[in-house]
């Protein structure tokens, strides 16, 4: 790390990594969230959890060092850190359902201003399935959605109401995209713009967001450096 310019995906992961604090138990979704460990300070101790039965996931193994029986929930090879444990799927979800996860970072198709999450089906087109997302979204202490601000067709993914079937209602606490960091106020059911990511402007974020944004005071610009 620290070499050259970050890709957009890396910039998003680096911003999300700021939300990971020392001592947390954290579950990361597939895709961009899986890049987060690359941007954590070395002095913090985090136990990464995987739904298939590992607590204490370490870095990706070197090429040639992969173990086909040591993978994350996406089926990708991982390593473990000292203090790690293996267990079955029931226990993996027992940890989630009991509320022991401090943080989960998920991808999404749509998020509403109430914090509703849709990430399991694009009706008639694509069916990723529910997987562990319903358990994770409903039971984690904090839920962050890390996703592109708009769909591939340019449609806003942050909306006043989701149009796709929901995974879980009123569960999202924070939305991080390539354009902005947005907090969901679950009491007022309003979205608060916290930061914009360089090179985007507040105006561009407002234009690409399908729900009103509360803007208070100066909005920080995150440069990723």
């Amino acid at each position: 790390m620290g070499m050259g310019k970050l890709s957009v995906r890396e910039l998003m992961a680096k911003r999300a990594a700021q939300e990971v604090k020392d001592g947390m138990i954290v579950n990361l979704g597939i895709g961009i969230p899986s890049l987060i460990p690359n941007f954590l300070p070395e002095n913090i101790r985090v136990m990464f959890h995987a739904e298939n039965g590992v607590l204490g996931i370490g870095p990706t193994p070197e090429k040639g060092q992969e173990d086909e029986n040591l993978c994350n929930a996406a089926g990708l090879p991982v390593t473990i850190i000292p203090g790690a444990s293996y267990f079955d799927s029931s226990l993996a979800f027992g940890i989630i359902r009991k509320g022991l996860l401090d943080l989960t970072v998920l991808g999404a198709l749509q998020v509403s201003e109430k914090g509703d999450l849709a990430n399991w089906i694009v009706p008639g087109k694509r069916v990723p399935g529910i997987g562990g997302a319903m358990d994770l979204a409903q039971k984690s202490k904090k839920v962050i959605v890390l996703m592109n601000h708009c769909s591939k067709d340019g449609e806003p993914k942050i909306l006043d109401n989701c149009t796709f079937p929901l995974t879980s209602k009123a569960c999202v606490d924070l939305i991080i995209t390539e354009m902005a960091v947005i907090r969901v106020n679950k009491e007022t059911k309003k979205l608060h713009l916290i930061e914009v990511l360089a090179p985007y402007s507040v105006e561009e974020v407002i234009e690409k967001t399908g729900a009103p944004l509360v803007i208070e005071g100066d909005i920080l610009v995150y440069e990723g450096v």
Partner: protein
Amino acid sequence: MNEFGKIISLENALSYFHDEMTLMFGGFGGIGNPPTLIKGILEKGIKNLTLIGNDAGFPNIGIGQLVTANQAKKMITTHIGSNPNAGRQMTEGTLEVEFNPQGTFIERIRAAGVGLGGVLIDVGIDSVIDVDKQRVTVAQKEYLVETPLTADVAIVYAQKADQFGNLIFDKSARNSNPFVAMAGKITIAEVEEIVPLGELNPEEIIVPGAFVHYIVKTEGVNWKWAWEN
């Protein structure tokens, strides 16, 4: 060295599979799917299967191969995103898919495995998975009654078995396998190694042999993993 009569040939094991059956399988994203039994079912051309398992694998990995070959008519599962063939068949109407939250799914299997009439879970209440499910209120909190899931035959993949069928697993290949092994009307364990009685440390046994009816020696994984190449 087969005093319980549980160690059988692949050919014998395949006699338990037939068209229209319910088949539960252990594994998660292909890892922990029993490769030799799946290859046998594939080659025998068993069709109209109702598959019960965590996910639809990948198109050419694990259980995904049976979906790709159109041998399943229904899946009771949690996730099919890693196998686009499953999503396509679902959209076209040739594959019925019942989705469960992943944690709920394994508890339904566990319930069957340990003889429970169901489990009370609040995950997914008032959501798309909450269709015609019975509700109960316990201590002022509302739960869905999630019913047990069993199958005609359950197939699992384990690292080692002794001849009684005591099983141990390897790292994250354990996943759903222990409870799938417990939930079948008939359980067939495909294993990497069969060891003499007494060789497994009783403290490390994950599934007691009481749950396991038959044991088959594996021929090993016969697919390339998604991350290879």
